[in-house]
């Protein structure tokens, strides 16, 4: 294999593995804020127990997120050095801002969140929890700014020629709020909240099926379902707005998502189907006019097809189509599951409906699949561009790095990440089997003081 293919596999593989964890940290961060907030508000020790248990799971996901995240920062320079020279002026600022504003905030307060339970008072601890969650969200903001700039570059001008050609900032805020940033950030964050909520839902449903820690699991399930339903519902809105944005900013990408070759009015929406790339046709179950309507709010406005783009400017159609439709299907499934869950909860029969509890146990895969496929669709749909319209993917490679060297590191990462994943699953399972600590029902140390006590800091 050539250095391009190997570098793409390595970057895609390491980022996909990394992206299992940050959404969990962001989503669990929100869940932790809610649980600890409920404890402060209601004074019920069950919420303290919830927060303590889920903090431990959070710590696990956070640790692997940090360890695999450093790899990403290094890989821009190691494998994509020419790209780094081209975008450093623009892209580097977002990464540096992420470091200063997000990572320091997260890691600083993480110490208090994990180890400060009985060293500081309730309100200060709650503040630390909020700051860790906020830091995780800031991190998403800056990394989505950077990625969205690659999709819809703005606020820059090009300077220099040939190898010295590069993008320089002209307007920082135009760069930050580039045309796709806000909707993509909202879509990414909702996906992350789903990931966190569904992990809570899944573990709690499993406890309920096994009739273990039922009071604890019931309380967690309610928090999880509320966050899950909210995020899944919002995801419909943010997904729709993002797709409209793709239609506006990257029409070739939208055409590939839907396998649309000819520019047509009344363009159909594919519910399920496949792309016949040889004959440039897409077959399947379609809703006539729905794509035109969803993209332009009007059934008759034409949607641009792939034939309007030169073959060398088209993204890989089959992959884009499958990733995109897979994401939509997984996302719809999560919404359906949370609606069902909330409906049975409202009727009061959720705990007796064992088939639904089993569905909830496996529902943890839903947001993970949707998040992964969504990013695959976003990045494969961006091809053949590395920076949309400015730099093609092969142009970004490091000039001095050879294929055998990349193969070595690829083998190394494969080995390390399989090991990491095995250890993660082993320890997650171990925490779940152990369950919550009974002594967490009685807060100790400074936490034992009630929140409204004036002596508490």
């Amino acid at each position: 294999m050539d250095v391009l293919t190997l570098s793409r596999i390595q970057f895609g593989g390491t980022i996909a593995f990394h992206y299992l964890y940050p959404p969990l940290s962001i989503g669990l961060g929100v869940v932790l804020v809610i649980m600890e907030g409920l404890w402060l508000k209601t004074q019920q020790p069950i919420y303290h127990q919830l927060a303590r248990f889920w903090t431990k799971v959070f710590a696990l996901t956070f640790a692997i997120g940090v360890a695999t995240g450093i790899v990403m920062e290094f890989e821009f320079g190691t494998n994509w050095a020419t790209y780094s020279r081209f975008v450093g002026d623009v892209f580097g600022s977002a990464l540096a801002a992420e470091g200063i504003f997000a990572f320091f905030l997260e890691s600083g307060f993480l110490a208090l969140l994990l180890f400060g339970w009985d060293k500081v008072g309730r309100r200060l601890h709650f503040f630390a929890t909020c700051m860790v969650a906020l830091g995780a969200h800031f991190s998403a903001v800056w990394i989505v700014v950077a990625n969205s700039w690659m999709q819809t570059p703005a606020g820059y001008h090009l300077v220099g020629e040939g190898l010295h050609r590069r993008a320089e900032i002209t307007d920082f805020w135009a760069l930050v709020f580039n045309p796709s940033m806000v909707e993509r950030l909202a879509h990414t964050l909702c996906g992350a909240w789903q990931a966190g909520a569904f992990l809570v839902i899944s573990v709690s449903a499993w406890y309920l099926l096994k009739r273990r820690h039922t009071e604890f699991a019931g309380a967690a399930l309610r928090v999880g379902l509320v966050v899950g339903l909210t995020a899944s519902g919002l995801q419909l809105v943010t997904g729709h707005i993002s797709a409209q944005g793709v239609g506006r900013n990257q029409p070739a990408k939208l055409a590939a998502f839907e396998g649309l070759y000819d520019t047509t009015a009344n363009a159909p929406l594919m519910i399920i189907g496949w792309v016949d790339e040889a004959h440039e046709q897409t077959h399947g179950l379609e809703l006539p006019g729905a794509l035109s309507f969803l993209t332009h709010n009007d059934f008759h406005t034409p949607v641009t097809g792939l034939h309007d783009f030169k073959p060398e400017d088209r993204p890989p159609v089959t992959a884009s189509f499958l990733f995109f439709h897979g994401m939509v299907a997984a996302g719809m499934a999560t919404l359906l599951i949370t609606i069902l869950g909330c409906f049975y909860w409202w009727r009061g029969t959720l705990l007796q409906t064992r088939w639904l509890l089993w569905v909830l146990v496996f529902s943890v895969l839903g947001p993970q699949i949707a998040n992964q496929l969504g990013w695959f669709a976003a990045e494969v749909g961006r091809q053949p561009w590395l920076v949309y319209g400015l730099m093609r993917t092969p142009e970004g490679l490091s000039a001095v790095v050879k294929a055998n060297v990349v193969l070595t590191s690829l083998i190394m990462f494969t080995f390390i990440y399989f090991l990491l994943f095995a250890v993660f699953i082993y320890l997650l399972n171990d925490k779940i089997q152990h369950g919550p600590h009974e002594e967490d029902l009685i807060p100790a140390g400074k936490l034992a003081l009630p929140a409204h006590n004036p002596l508490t800091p």
Partner: protein
Amino acid sequence: MNFLHADLNTVWFILIGVLFTGYAMLDGFDLGIGALHLFTREDAERRILLNAIGPVWDGNEVWLVTGGGALFAAFPDVYATVFSGFYLAFMLLLASLIFRAVAIEFRSKQPMPWWRQMWDAGFSAGSLLSSLLIGVTLGNLAWGLPIDERGEFAGTFLGLLTPYPLLLGITTVALFMMHGAIYGVMKTEGALHDKLRGWAMRCIIAFVICAATTTMATLLYVPHIAARVRENPWLFSLALANMLAIANIPREFHHRRDWRAFLSSCAAIATLMLLFGLNQYPNLVYSRPQPEHSLTIYNAASSPKTLGIMLVIALIGLPIVLAYTVSVYWIFRGKVKMDRMSY
């Protein structure tokens, strides 16, 4: 050489220096504790040392991440040339940092001896290798790299492992072990405390020998640095300040002021980094044998506008970062006490 040329490029040279110095002072003791880890025999002692760095190590590592991000943003050509040129070395660094991080998190989660020994070895090897590679990288930057006319690295992986960079690598390991031992002295009590004090003294001796050897090797074999020192003899005062800071450590130990010994060790690291920075300036990557291909703070920098924007970000961010770094160290001050949240 004019050190008073305070333009944006110089400011960013200093800021990146501050970030990497912060990394060396803070994560340096984590890596040092890791390197000393296998010398402790009992599980209880290992856990105390792990918990001494437990609440702070990942915050410390963020200094490296932010330093890397700042280098990417301020001097993209240096980031691109060094990271692609040092490909295998940096991949090894990543692997060792990952092993270290994961070992800290996972070691004490299971009681089985084989489990703990496996992660102990990973923690120690990861810490040692990280320190060594960081030192080798600095050594190569001081020695000079083969850079071609496009500004790309023109050497090989094995070409990075020459005696001078390796000497700096070993010096860095000794420095971090000394720093880690002193941090350990500050955080422990009883028998472990006394044991660590003995180790700290041995590490100080090892470091002083390494530092003296490195200084001689630099003056003898690195002509561009030797020339700079000849032109600016006052640079010797920094080397002197470094030695005085080291000499102060046993004195503070004698007076039982362990935290001041730690501050002395931090000062020693800061003077070393300052010396390194002053010898490099205004080069970031000195090209050898063709100095005209060197990457400097001017030909490798981002646009003045970006440097200005980033300076605003840094001026807003750094004070906040310093404030909560200090708060976290304050809240977790004092000797390590084990509880059920411990590693």
